């Protein structure tokens, strides 16, 4: 990237961050809730993007991990424990469960992991619903408290939104570092050509497992934030539908692209809103839009932009070549 383009990129990034920080000051409760929901879902989608987009594993259990995180947070904070402890527990628990789930499942080929995670997703829902002593069963846990951050209450929508945004920022930075690290490159090797990676000495199974476990842990983190956001958790929010929704977010945004999850979460959370004008038909329009988008660009929204940019640079390069070829006829004849 040229220097000018890099500066432009940084400026654009700064503008987006500034917008995310300052514009909400003038939003109502609903707008703030939606933005907070977007940031929470983005975190879960980033986790799934790591598993799917970078390591090439299909996981249909991300929704279940969000549920585990949410229930952990709800159970603990309703009992008076601080949210920070709940978050740590949620992340650790989901990491471990992810590891245990992935370990045997990754002995088989990748589309079989999808089926195992599918089964796990439904089993998790059944546990949430049936184990009343722990989760209050179908009735759910209501009155989940909002945390105090450095003594400041987040009961109001705006402070809690900043908490969500801050968490998203931390996750973004951490993920950026991860992707740039040798680990990140190993993950991408797994996606592109597992056989070759194996032949080069990369322990594919271990890295795949890591990716899946980290991705699941991020799902748990998202869940731990979701519980105080909605102030209510119940089993019906964490069914297979959520996992499928998260999968859709990753694919529609652009699987394997760094900013894919953010766009995908935006689509899933906001697009139904924008389609309200369609009244009862809004879900049909939404589904058709998703199908059309995927048909046009199976690599998602960022895939379209990527293609466009690559086309432009390819055209620019061939123009340069043509110009270079045209300009030196005398020199070649020697």
């Amino acid at each position: 990237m040229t220097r000018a383009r890099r500066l432009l990129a940084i400026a654009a990034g700064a503008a987006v961050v500034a917008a995310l920080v300052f514009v909400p000051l003038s939003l109502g409760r609903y707008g703030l809730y939606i933005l907070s929901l977007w940031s929470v879902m983005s975190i879960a989608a980033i986790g799934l993007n790591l598993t799917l987009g970078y390591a090439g594993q299909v996981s249909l259990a991300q929704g279940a991990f969000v549920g585990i995180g949410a229930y952990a947070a709800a159970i603990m904070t309703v009992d008076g424990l601080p949210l920070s402890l709940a978050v740590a527990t949620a992340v650790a628990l989901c990491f471990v469960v992810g590891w245990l789930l992935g370990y045997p499942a990754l002995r088989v080929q990748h589309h079989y992991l999808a089926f195992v995670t599918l089964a796990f997703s439904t089993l998790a829902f059944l546990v949430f619903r049936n184990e009343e002593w722990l989760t209050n069963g179908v009735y759910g846990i209501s009155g989940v408290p909002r945390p105090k951050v450095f003594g400041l209450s987040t009961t109001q929508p705006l402070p809690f939104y900043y908490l969500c945004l801050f968490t998203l920022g931390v996750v973004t930075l951490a993920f950026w570092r991860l992707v740039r690290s040798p680990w990140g490159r190993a993950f991408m090797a797994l996606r592109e050509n597992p056989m070759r990676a194996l032949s080069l000495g990369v322990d594919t199974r271990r890295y795949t497992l890591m990716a899946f476990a980290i991705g699941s842990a991020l799902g748990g983190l998202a869940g731990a934030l979701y519980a105080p956001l909605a102030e209510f958790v119940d089993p019906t929010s964490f069914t297979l539908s959520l996992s499928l929704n998260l999968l859709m977010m990753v694919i529609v945004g652009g699987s394997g692209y760094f900013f894919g999850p953010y766009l995908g979460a935006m689509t899933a959370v906001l697009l139904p809103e924008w389609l309200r004008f369609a009244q009862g038909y809004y879900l049909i329009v939404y589904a058709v839009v998703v199908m059309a988008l995927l048909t046009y660009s199976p690599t998602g929204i960022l895939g379209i932009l990527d293609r466009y940019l690559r086309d432009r640079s390819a055209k620019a390069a061939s123009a340069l070549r043509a110009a270079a070829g045209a300009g030196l006829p005398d020199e070649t004849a020697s």
Partner: protein
Amino acid sequence: MSSLFDLVISGLATGAIYALVAIGFTLLWQTSQTINFAQGEFVMLPAFLMLAVVRAGAPFWLAIIVGALLSIAILGIAFKKLLVDPMLRHGVLPLAIATMALSVAMKESVKQFFSAEAQPFPSIAPSGSVSILGSPVSLQSLGVFAFGLAAVIGLNLFLERTSSGRQMQAAAQNPTVARIVGVPVERMIMLTFVINAALVALASLLVTPIYLAKFSSGETLGQAAFIAAIVGGFNQVRGAIIGGLAIGVLDNLAAAYVSTQYRAAVPLALLIVIILFRPEGLVGRSEERTV
């Protein structure tokens, strides 16, 4: 003991329904690597098409024919041309997501354009039941079971014994070589989709009197069929019927003897066990990996 037998019989009847739906699912995967998350809705829609024709004033027998033809056109030809073809070369996953969106579109369309209420659906099998070893089995369920069996036997015969069937298998296993050898691969794949559409239309006709016509009836059916297909063996059509029957019976036995709250967990646990120890399914063939 008679109650156990009764549970097995009715489990087989329900399982036959799952099997019917799973057959088409397996067929699509086998021949074109399409994972169709909308398969349940594919079974839901033909019944509504037929009901719509009846509402327009036609007699039931005509509605069946028109409905079936419409299903083949929409769920077979249009589905393939509009959704599958553009996406297939980009891999399995985007198409799978697209079929998820398709299932939402179909459900909501039926809900908006027809009704959110469940509708009764006339049965082509006579009502009443027959006694098998002391247990009353409804003629409808017998009809489903018989048809499922016939479909599988017919399909197997078609795939193994006829030239078109063998061409279809060739197109599925190795399209490149098949093309070289002169197999009209595209036409064969289209044929698969048409067969699936015909199967779901007939399944719809048999199953809807029992399940009732409702826009959401595809959900449980689709998921059960998906699990049945995997348990039975994702790459063998006869696996679908074994898987379906197994799931149907297991669900009943689990509810009666284990716990009704966790009844859905037993087929899932079975799924996990099968995946881990026998990933090709109960009767599937091991998939070879190309290096």
